[in-house]
């Protein structure tokens, strides 16, 4: 099946009109060609000509481009025969249902003029030595139209000087229904639209081909003159070209370039531009959108390949027509980021910001950084850089809603106090608009902290913790303290001091890095209680304060975290009580009481914390369900000390085969995001994150991304992210993130083996029970998400007394960029009473951003309050914050705390007394000895017991 010759093209048109009289009308053009040939076009549509919108396909202006006529005849035949048979059309892998054919035939009129220049084509088909683009007058017909026509010989003596172009004009003039015109050429695999005169622009109507002011300026790229096109027309044209492209690509996967005709080369007097220019020159004429197809990769491909090209282009024409009838005509671009602000970037931290465009358009729009980003002012070393995501982005078509394009810029904080400015220029490829976007940056020092961990090593730390078989208080400390060391950010100072009746500095304040973390963890490993030793918290806090007061410690925050399991008790040692040293403490003091208020009588420590910008938390009696409590208290205090806010902090258990997704919300106010997995064996978990856009962050991704760290040790594993996290597209910042947990069965088996190896120190049955419990109920975990943020919650408490019946007032203060979060948050506390009863406490906003709640503490023991805030940022993004506080009351809570004046005599009677001291003293008095005798108590045995229990 060879190429059609010029005679066959005319015969085919005549035959189609004769065969399909109800759907194909023969249009014989009024002018003979220069060589005297008659040419024919056809109108294809159901029924007589009427005002239905029309498309106009033109072929064969240029002689060498043989296949265009074959495309036209084949496509006309397809439409007519498919409609007659009520079938669809199949082009390669692309099938159009019969409904599409019916729509085109019934709602539209298709004009096809297959061979405008048969003289030239005949010459080309019969003479291999002729390559030219002319008619028999030596005129390039596609330069002879009245659209910025240029007076040079090959363009004719005047616009429409040629009979062939007059024929094309005749069709436009005779059929004002024509709204879309495609001029079919070859080659280079292109799909183009108006204009060919110059680059398009949509902002300056005065720059148009009719305005003589700009004569002589047209046709040069980037010269200050661009051709005006209405935005809605550009939207229509880009959208239709995209539809042609996708329809064509669906046939056999070939991708044609798209763009405006000027992208090919500057053209004047073309049919494509004439189609669109008619309306501009004479508004009474129909506006026709002009298009250009350049099919194939050579003028005359072997016909076997030409047959494939016919399928490609036929699909493009049908997809085009179907979509054209939808009449999409929208193009709107808004620069959302008039400037880029790298606000408060910490030293050395790299942050990303995007120049963001919001588009509503029938077509996709391409944006590209064409200049910069460059620094206009700033200290040496200032750099604004493009990122691995590239220098361009495309906003997909979205005529009914909107879509975005993001061009990412990065900036790394130089030195604290620095400011910098810069600029970047972004261009839209379709509209040739350019935007200069100013960039500003300022650098801050990230507040750093010096933290002393003050650890009780008195004899009672050997006692059973209650968490599980063989787990002593000492063991609990050993797995709760190391995560503090793992999670504290590099550059903060951490020190360790242990105490009994004397303070024992273990590790001075040391800047945290990989090495010093190892050293600190070794110290925890070496921790051992001192049998029989007493408890002097007063001396311990003074020693910790001395270390924090050293001139070399210049951190913004200085804090100590005291962990104790007992009350102040000095035995025969002459030591100071908390009440005596309070005045010399000026660091922030936090305390964790491991045990019950009865036991610890923490009034003095509570007061010391409250007076030094801290708070005390009591664990209450521990049990298996509270195994993370100490760890979490430590983490919460650490978060507060190092300027982090906790987003959420849920616990759970997971079994092999299950998948847990723990959601947490990040807002645009958040600068970093840390997600901590706390577990006795974090290695047993497969731990990953899913970003709001669906990107997955796993250890591999974290390793490849400079802005994501994966850290941790034996009790904690965490992802630490600089926000936004940019893995693709828009990047991820605000929205719902999810931590994903699954059990790695192999690692779980390994963990079981490790547990069994420990069975020499623990009863083997207990190990079996632990394993069985894990198999039955799953591994325990806690996932804490936290953020260094501009949206902060600080919670505090005050209670009227430490006796049962005391009134507790809880207060949560919410600020965003230091401004109160007013009328856009709700705060509640989940309250757990000493007996385990749960209830919810509603907070009320008493002042802007201040939320308060009150409750009575009726029962002896620890009541915990998990305070949870939910709200919206100034920009309307949801956020959550969380913090736990505890309140303790006990009988005798309001008795004066021990002080120097009552040393050695205890604190009186009741639950607050020092029994050892009392019994020892009493047993040595005359009346005491009489009493013991009377009750048949052996004084020697009592002395033995006293030695055993009281050291």
């Amino acid at each position: 099946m060879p190429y059609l010759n010029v005679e066959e093209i005319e015969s085919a048109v005549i035959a189609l009109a004769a065969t399909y009289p109800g759907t194909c009308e023969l249009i014989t053009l009024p002018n003979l060609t220069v060589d005297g040939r008659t040419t024919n076009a056809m109108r294809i549509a159901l029924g007589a000509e009427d005002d239905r919108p029309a498309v106009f396909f033109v072929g064969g202006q240029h002689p060498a481009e043989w296949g265009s006529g074959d495309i036209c005849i084949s496509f006309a035949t397809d439409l007519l025969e498919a409609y007659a048979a009520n079938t669809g059309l199949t082009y390669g892998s692309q099938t159009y249902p019969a409904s599409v054919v019916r729509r085109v035939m019934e709602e539209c009129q298709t004009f096809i003029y297959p061979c405008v220049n048969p003289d030239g084509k005949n010459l080309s088909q019969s003479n291999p030595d002729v390559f030219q683009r002319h008619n028999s007058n030596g005129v390039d017909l596609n330069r002879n139209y009245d659209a910025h026509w240029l007076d040079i010989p090959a363009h004719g003596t005047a616009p429409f000087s040629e009979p062939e172009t007059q024929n094309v004009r005749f069709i436009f003039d005779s059929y004002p229904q024509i709204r879309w015109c495609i001029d079919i050429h070859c080659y280079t695999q292109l799909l183009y639209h108006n204009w060919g005169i110059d680059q398009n622009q949509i902002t300056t109507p005065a720059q148009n081909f009719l305005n003589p002011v700009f004569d002589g300026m047209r046709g040069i790229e980037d010269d200050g003159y661009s051709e005006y096109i209405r935005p809605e027309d550009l939207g229509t044209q880009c959208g239709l070209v995209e539809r042609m492209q996708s329809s064509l690509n669906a046939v056999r996967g070939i991708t044609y370039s798209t763009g405006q005709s000027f992208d090919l080369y500057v053209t004047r007097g073309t049919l494509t531009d004439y189609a669109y220019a008619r309306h501009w020159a004479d508004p009474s004429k129909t506006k026709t959108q002009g298009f250009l197809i350049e099919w194939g990769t050579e003028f005359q491909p072997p016909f076997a390949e030409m047959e494939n090209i016919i399928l490609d282009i036929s699909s493009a024409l049908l997809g085009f027509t179907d979509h054209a009838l939808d009449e999409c005509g929208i193009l709107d671009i808004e620069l959302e980021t008039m400037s880029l602000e790298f606000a408060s970037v910490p030293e050395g931290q790299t942050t990303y910001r995007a120049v963001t465009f919001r588009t509503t358009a029938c077509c996709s729009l391409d944006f590209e950084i064409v200049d910069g980003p460059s620094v206009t002012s700033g200290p040496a070393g200032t750099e604004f850089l493009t990122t691995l995501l590239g220098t361009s982005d495309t906003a997909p078509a979205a005529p009914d809603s909107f879509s975005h394009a993001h061009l990412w810029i990065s900036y790394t904080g130089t030195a604290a106090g620095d400011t910098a400015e810069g600029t970047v220029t972004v261009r839209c490829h379709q509209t040739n608009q350019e935007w200069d976007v100013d960039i500003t940056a300022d650098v801050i020092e990230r507040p750093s902290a010096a933290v002393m961990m003050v650890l009780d090593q008195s004899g009672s730390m050997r006692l059973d913790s209650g968490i599980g078989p063989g787990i002593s208080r000492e063991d609990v400390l050993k797995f709760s303290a190391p995560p503090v060391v793992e999670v504290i950010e590099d550059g903060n100072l951490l020190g360790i001091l242990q105490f009994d009746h004397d303070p024992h500095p273990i590790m001075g304040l040391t800047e945290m890095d990989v090495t010093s973390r190892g050293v600190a963890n070794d110290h925890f490993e070496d921790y051992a209680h001192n049998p029989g030793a007493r408890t002097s918290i007063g001396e311990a806090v003074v020693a910790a304060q001395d270390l924090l007061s050293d001139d070399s410690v210049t951190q913004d925050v200085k804090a100590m975290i005291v962990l104790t399991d007992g009350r102040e008790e000095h035995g025969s040692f002459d030591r100071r009580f908390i009440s005596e040293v309070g005045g010399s403490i000026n660091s922030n003091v936090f305390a964790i009481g491991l045990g019950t208020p009865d036991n610890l009588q923490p009034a003095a420590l509570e007061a010391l914390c409250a007076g030094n910008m801290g708070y005390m938390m009591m664990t209450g009696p521990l049990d298996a369900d509270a195994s993370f409590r100490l760890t979490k208290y430590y983490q919460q205090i650490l978060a507060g000390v190092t300027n982090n806010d906790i987003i959420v902090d849920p616990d759970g258990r997971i079994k092999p085969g299950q998948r847990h997704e723990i959601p947490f919300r990040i807002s645009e106010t958040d600068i970093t995001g840390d997600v901590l997995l706390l577990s006795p064996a974090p290695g047993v978990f497969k731990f990953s994150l899913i970003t709001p856009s669906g990107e997955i962050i796993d250890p591999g991704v974290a390793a490849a991304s400079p802005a994501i760290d994966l850290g941790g040790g034996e009790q904690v594993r965490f992802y630490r992210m600089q926000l936004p996290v940019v893995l693709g597209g828009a990047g991820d910042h605000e929205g719902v993130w999810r931590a994903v947990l699954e059990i790695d069965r192999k690692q779980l088996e390994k963990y079981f083996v490790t547990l069994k190896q420990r069975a020499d120190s623990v009863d083997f049955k207990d190990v079996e029970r632990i394993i069985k419990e894990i198999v039955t109920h799953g591994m325990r975990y806690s996932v804490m998400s936290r953020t260094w943020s501009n949206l902060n919650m600080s919670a505090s408490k005050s209670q009227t007394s430490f006796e049962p019946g005391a009134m507790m007032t809880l207060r949560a203060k919410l600020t965003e960029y230091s401004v109160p979060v007013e009328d856009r948050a709700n705060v509640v506390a989940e309250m757990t009473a000493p007996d385990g009863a749960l209830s919810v406490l509603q907070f009320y906003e008493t002042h802007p951003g201040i939320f308060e709640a009150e409750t009575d503490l009726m029962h002896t023991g620890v009541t915990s309050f998990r305070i949870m805030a939910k709200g919206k940022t100034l920009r309307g993004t949801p956020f959550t914050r969380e913090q736990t506080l505890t309140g303790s009351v006990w009988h005798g809570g309001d008795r004066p705390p021990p002080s120097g004046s009552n040393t050695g005599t205890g604190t009186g009677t009741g639950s607050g007394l020092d029994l050892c001291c009392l019994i020892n003293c009493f047993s040595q008095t005359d009346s005491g000895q009489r009493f013991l005798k009377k009750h048949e108590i052996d004084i020697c045995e009592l002395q033995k017991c006293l030695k055993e229990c009281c050291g």
Partner: protein
Amino acid sequence: MAKKADSKSKDSGDFFKVMVHFKDHRSAREFIETYGFFLVHMHRLEKSSSEKSEAVTLEYFLTKAEINTVNKLGLEHEVQENMSKIGRLRQKEVGKGDRFKGGKIAPKSKNLSTRDDKRGDQ
């Protein structure tokens, strides 16, 4: 406008694909409009390169005489395949006579969805 060169060599009338390089758009446009040579395509340098280049390349089909003109203008260019040679091959694939007998026989579609063996049945 194409004219056969006077030279007697065998391929004197043949067209060659020639890439002609210009330093900027203005000189390219002047060349396009001064010489009505057979222009096929304009190639631009990739815009994404950070150093923006003005240089353009025009893809022409030129006879030897026209190539001489390009030479004389001192324009950088490369001569590629002989397109006339390919053209002579394709002549054999042009239809002879009139398959549609002056309009008495209509072409048949090969692309109807419902038809089996839609291709190559003619």
